């Protein structure tokens, strides 16, 4: 009987320790509660490791040339640097700029137009899109099931060697959820561990006055949809959110992106039309097109002197999180894939 109690206590302690150890995902101090429901998909090291392998494996694409990381590279805040519109198999080109991936547990809608209603469901779109990975979900499952690597990893993560759509998506979510960026200079300043330079400080004040309503701290976005006054590209004819809701009031509305790691996530806007932060700020001060659906927040013009533009830029650069950009736990899982090759 005594042994039983000791065993039970040991068990409880061990599982508590495990749960603590498992939290590759974490909620930074003073951040809001995540919207992702972790109860139906609790993150575990095995699940996140599987998700990471899948994220970096071109096996998800029809001709094994494109992985998630092709358009979401860690060193550029998990977006596709140098490409305004993202690329897919056979050099095909999509219609939108791939978004930077970070702090996804705090977002409930995905894609520039919010077409996707849950992080789990996001990966279905690029995997099946003919201009991205061009593969069917059943074919992906068959390939993974037949591989030497994956059935064991699925068993470790979900208790079964059977590769299902549910587990594929949940594993990818588990990895993506771990991509938390909250270690920038801005974060240190907020925690009183560092100080802004006078220029950054002035930039921060200007930011709060002019940008904060949409790019709300600490996530630097409300993740809502707005028309930010970009003239529609007459080649792409992309009207954003309206395609999803079929509501004319949503014409030209796009998801407000986070500004975290903006230094590394160029080009900017849904169609990647701007290469430099300078151009983005110029758009807000002098490029706004007044149409019916223009965001309320932009009805009064943003006025900035050229010095103020420089100061805001200095502040935006404090949102760079090098620990995130170079965290080896988010990188290509070299060891795992090398093992596979050696076999």
């Amino acid at each position, binding site marked *: *009987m005594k042994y*039983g109690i000791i065993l039970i206590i040991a068990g409880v302690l061990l599982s508590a320790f495990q749960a603590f150890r498992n939290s590759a995902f974490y909620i930074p101090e003073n951040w809001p509660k995540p919207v992702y*429901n972790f109860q*139906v*998909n609790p993150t575990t090291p095995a699940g996140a490791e599987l998700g990471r392998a899948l994220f970096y494996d071109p096996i998800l694409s029809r001709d094994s040339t494109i992985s998630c990381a092709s358009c979401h590279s860690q060193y550029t805040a998990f977006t596709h640097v140098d490409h305004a519109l993202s690329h897919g198999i056979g050099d095909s080109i999509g219609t939108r700029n791939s978004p930077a991936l970070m702090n996804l547990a705090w977002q409930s809608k995905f894609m520039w137009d919010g*077409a*996707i*209603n*849950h*992080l*789990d*469901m996001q990966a*279905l*779109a690029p*995997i*099946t*899109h003919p201009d991205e990975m061009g593969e069917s*979900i*059943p074919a992906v*499952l068959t390939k993974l099931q037949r591989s030497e690597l994956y059935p064991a990893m699925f068993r470790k993560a979900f208790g079964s060697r059977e590769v*299902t*759509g*549910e*587990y*594929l*998506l*949940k594993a990818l*979510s588990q990895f993506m959820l771990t991509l938390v960026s909250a270690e920038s200079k801005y974060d240190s300043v907020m925690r009183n561990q560092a100080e802004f330079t006078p220029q950054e400080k002035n930039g921060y004040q200007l930011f709060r006055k002019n940008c904060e309503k949409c790019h709300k701290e600490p996530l630097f976005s409300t993740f809502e949809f707005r028309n930010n006054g970009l003239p529609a590209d007459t080649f792409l004819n992309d009207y954003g959110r309206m395609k*999803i*809701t*079929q509501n004319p009031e949503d014409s030209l509305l796009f998801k407000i992106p986070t500004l975290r790691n903006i230094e590394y996530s160029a080009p900017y806007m849904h169609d990647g039309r701007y290469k430099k932060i300078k151009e983005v700020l110029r758009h807000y001060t002098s490029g706004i097109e007044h149409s019916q659906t223009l965001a309320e927040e932009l009805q009064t013009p943003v006025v900035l002197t050229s010095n103020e533009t420089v100061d805001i830029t200095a502040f935006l650069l404090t949102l760079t999180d090098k620990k995130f950009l170079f965290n080896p736990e988010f990188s290509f899982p070299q060891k795992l894939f090398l093992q596979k090759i050696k076999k």
Partner: protein
Amino acid sequence: MRMILFLYCIFLTAIVSPLHAQEAFTLAFHPFFQGEPLENDRFYVTEKGDSVMPETFKIYLSGFEVKGENPGFYYKETESYHLLDLENPASFQFPLRGIPEGLQSGVLHFQLGIDSLTNVSGAMGGALDPSKGMYWTWQSGYINLKLEGISPSNKTRNHEFQFHLGGYLSPFNAVQSVDLPFSGQKTLDVGIDLSVFFRNIELKTQKSIMSPCKDAVYLSGEAAKMFYILNP
């Protein structure tokens, strides 16, 4: 220690016994076209006069409930999601587990399609696994009904028609409720008459729906009328 074992046994009995106490009540769905059993590779004529050969027919039925006429009789299936697929005839028949005894007559209630809460709850398994070909990939949401086939009336390539009906967001929420009164059976046979679906479709002009929209909601309403109790 003995006490624990004893409690454990009681606990086990409590779990297992309900499964034994009740006999399963089976639902069997039967696809028809104007009263004739639906067969593969066969053309049927719609009320509008179009020849059609249905090739794919997949449909989500969910939220099964039985309201009995005997007072207080009520049953609700847990995890109630079923994908009926013409390619997998076994999927057309399933038991309603744990239904209380003494059911004579009542109303069978279910939904054609997947409710909005499930639609926004992330990746699911079993019948709801997104690899079943009943989930839109470019825009989140379950396809409630997939009906594809051939009709010479279609001027499209290969004369194909494709109806993918779904949508969970207002104003294009396409989920439909179906209520069917029945009496006195252990196996409840439910007919699905596909001709009802085609009653108001002009295949010459309307040959495909692939996203949530007004027509998808309308046709989902028509699809809900396909269900009827055989030999009530």
